[in-house]
């Protein structure tokens, strides 16, 4: 009974924290964007023309986006609507922010989730090779790969791959969002830098696990090296990788801005860039809240499944 109450408390705490993060993101973007000196509606006009636009016209435009109301009223108005998933209309297109984001989201989800799977695959292969190889030069070489992967700018690797596989060999389309073939190069481009930190972490935890007592015990019981890697080390060493899910997600989002730009793909990354470049206030706010919510959700999931995977944490939870 006591344990169940503790679990409920733990859940409530974590969920509450996630909700707080999303609310804070909303409020912070509101403050940042609305204290800017420019009236967002003015950005609809050619900057060379601004001075010659009659003031009443500027007021009319500001009014239709609600920018003319007192700041507090605007805040609660927007917060109320945001709770129902309505972030207003994009200033630049008149399109609903939610619709604009939902239109771009699937493309980014395909790219990011594909890149994540590929990145994990690359990281595990690197970790496995460094752990299982008996040749020091192979280990050294492979161990150097993750730092290399992190330091290659997405921009450069993307352009290089386009030059070779698209412009020269013609294997993949250079731009656009047409079918599975168009996602291959962006996927690799995004996966490589994301795989770096995961691989570094895995290499280290694989090595630590290998020195653990239970490995020696397993050996003593007659288990083979590969058997140990797959049955024991693999599972235990994977846990730390989960803790950097937030960082990985951040890297995926940051990488997708550049990947989507280089490959002219539809997506949240490019939408963010365009929204910021044109100071499309409602759109920027919608995207920031979406990203913050995703961050919070991922960390929440990690927090929730961690105790399930690690019995020691469950024990602590019960005691506390």
């Amino acid at each position, binding site marked *: 009974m006591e344990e169940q109450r503790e679990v409920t408390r733990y859940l409530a705490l974590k969920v509450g924290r996630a909700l707080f993060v999303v609310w804070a993101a909303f409020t912070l973007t509101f403050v940042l964007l609305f204290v800017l000196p420019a009236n967002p509606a003015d950005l609809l006009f050619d900057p060379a023309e601004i001075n010659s636009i009659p003031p009443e016209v500027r007021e009319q435009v500001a009014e239709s986006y609600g920018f003319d109301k007192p700041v507090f009223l605007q805040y609660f108005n927007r917060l109320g609507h945001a709770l129902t998933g309505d972030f207003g209309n*994009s200033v630049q297109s008149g399109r609903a922010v939610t619709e604009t984001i939902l239109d771009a989201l699937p493309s980014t989800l395909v790219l990011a989730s594909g890149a994540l799977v590929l990145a994990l695959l690359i990281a595990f292969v690197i970790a496995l090779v460094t752990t299982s190889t008996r040749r020091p030069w192979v280990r050294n070489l492979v161990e150097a790969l993750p730092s290399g992967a992190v330091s290659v700018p997405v921009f450069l690797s993307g352009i290089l791959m386009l030059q070779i596989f698209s412009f020269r060999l013609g294997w993949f389309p250079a731009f656009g969002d047409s079918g599975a073939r168009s996602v291959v190069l962006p996927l690799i481009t995004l996966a490589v830098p994301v795989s770096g930190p995961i691989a570094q972490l895995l290499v280290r935890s694989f090595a630590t696990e290998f020195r653990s007592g239970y490995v020696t015990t397993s050996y003593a019981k007659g288990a083979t090296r590969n058997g140990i890697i797959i049955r024991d080390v693999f599972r235990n060493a994977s846990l730390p990788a989960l803790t950097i899910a937030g960082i990985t997600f951040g890297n995926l989002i940051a990488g997708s801005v550049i990947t989507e730009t280089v490959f002219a793909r539809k997506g949240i990354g490019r939408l963010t860039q365009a929204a910021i470049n044109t100071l499309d206030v409602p759109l920027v706010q919608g995207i920031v809240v979406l990203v913050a919510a995703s961050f919070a959700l991922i960390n929440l999931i990690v927090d929730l499944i961690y105790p399930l995977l690690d019995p020691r944490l469950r024990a602590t939870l019960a005691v506390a």
Partner: protein
Amino acid sequence: MSDLRSSIERAAPRRKAWPWAAGAVAVLLLAGGGFAITRGGGSVGAAAGGGAPVRGGTLQFALIDYQRSPDPQWGTNYAESLIGNNITDKLTWQDPKTGEITPWLAQSWEYNKELTDFTFHLRKDVTFSDGSPFNAEVVKANFDQYVRGDQKLGINPNGAALLSGYIETRTPDAYTAVVRFKKPLASFLQASSFTANAQPGFLSLSTLRLSAKERNDPRKVIGTGPFVYDSWEPQVKTVLVQRKGYTWSPPALKHQGAAYLDKVVFNTIPEASVRTGSLASGAIDATLDVGTTDEKSLADQGFTIIHRAVSGTAILFNFNSQLFPTNDIAVRKAIQLGWDREAIKKTVLTDSYSIATSILEPSVSGYADYSGSVLKYDPEKAKQLLQEAGWSEGPDGIRVKDGKKLVVKLLGISNLVVNKPAYESIQQDLKKIGIDLQLTVVPIPDYTANLAKAKTDWNVTASNRSRNDPAVLNLQYSPLLGNVTYLAKESTGVDVDEVTQTVGKLDQTLDPAARKEYAKAAQDLLIDKYALVNPVYNPSQVIAHANYVHGIVFDAQSRNHFVDAWKSNGK
């Protein structure tokens, strides 16, 4: 290269049959002496080379930006204006060579002496792609919404600046529209042909009833233009297909009938090297937004480079006439004289761009050349002017007067890549004569944000205005309108009323000779007498295309039209 090669190879068998037929037709025509009857043969496209236009095919076109909304009247970026021009038509067509306003959807027009009422007599054979007629009622409904917006539908007053002072449109009969203004607006005639951002392209009555959200369905956005929407994929591409039965392109274009191409695909490719790479590999046929560093290499690879300077004003340094130290005419004149134009021409600009020789770009009627007089590099004279005005050389080389340093703060826009290096070159030259030009060159939103404090914070605001009419001088410089040099009582040594009246005259007549005279007087005043502006360079729109592409038109606002474009391979 594989895509390009295969498409040409595939085209080969079909083309084999043509020399015979073409030869036979040519002989017949020559024998009949009938040059004039070659279908479309006299068009701009054919004149541009490549023989008789071929019908059919898809043009894969690339550009940097994407269409945010399919509504052409809304459009706030270049991509939108380009697409708008191909799905809608305007009342008039401005000849890109002469600047003359010529018929389009309006066959003829007249105006009252005060230039407040403009009467347009419309073509009677024009229809929208949904079959509904184009008439005076449509003109009225469009202009009303374009100027006033519609808050219920979420439509902005997109045309309020262009049609400033609009009262109403009267419809005395089905094909006569009288557009009325509160005060004289000579530049309205040019505005009726306007093809740049937020353009007055005509939409069907059914489209005007749609909300901003509903206009996101491109198939519901109905125009009278040579193309209609096929699809719109935000961030990726817009596909237009040929409008069947289109027969009303501007007579001045000499294009007859429907567009030659079946389809035009506007691909958004943000990255410059991907645009050029895609062109070189044959994935696209043509690209806009060619960078200055890519022009030569593309030309060397055999691609055709076409360009047109952006009509309106040059990229200008507009001086703040109220703020120290640009409230001193000696400082303003010294800046005009203090920078080496040749250096910028050689190191920053390509052949597609030019050094500004007036406020107006040379294609604007009334343009006058000041390169031999005021706008030339003369550092000695600049130094002398400053010395005479009491600016003596300070310990660090920067001049000082009454203990205050000669620091000039400039606010500029970074979106054109040429801007920053050009301004930096000027900065270096001015340092040599003792002026510290401090640059803040930022993206448009930051520029707009800073503009709110321009009167008190910035000595120079650097930008251009794209409007192919000499009255752009009135729009920008009149203290009653744009007032970009912040003229007021505090502006020492400037007769503010003289400026107001001189530039104001440009919107009070449409007589070409008088307008030329007024334009000259206005330029004399702004550039020479009061030195309120330092023109820098004329920006250009540059396209690179494959040699099998013909007939891409640059209009008077340097926007492109594809009604006359065709591909010799017909693919």
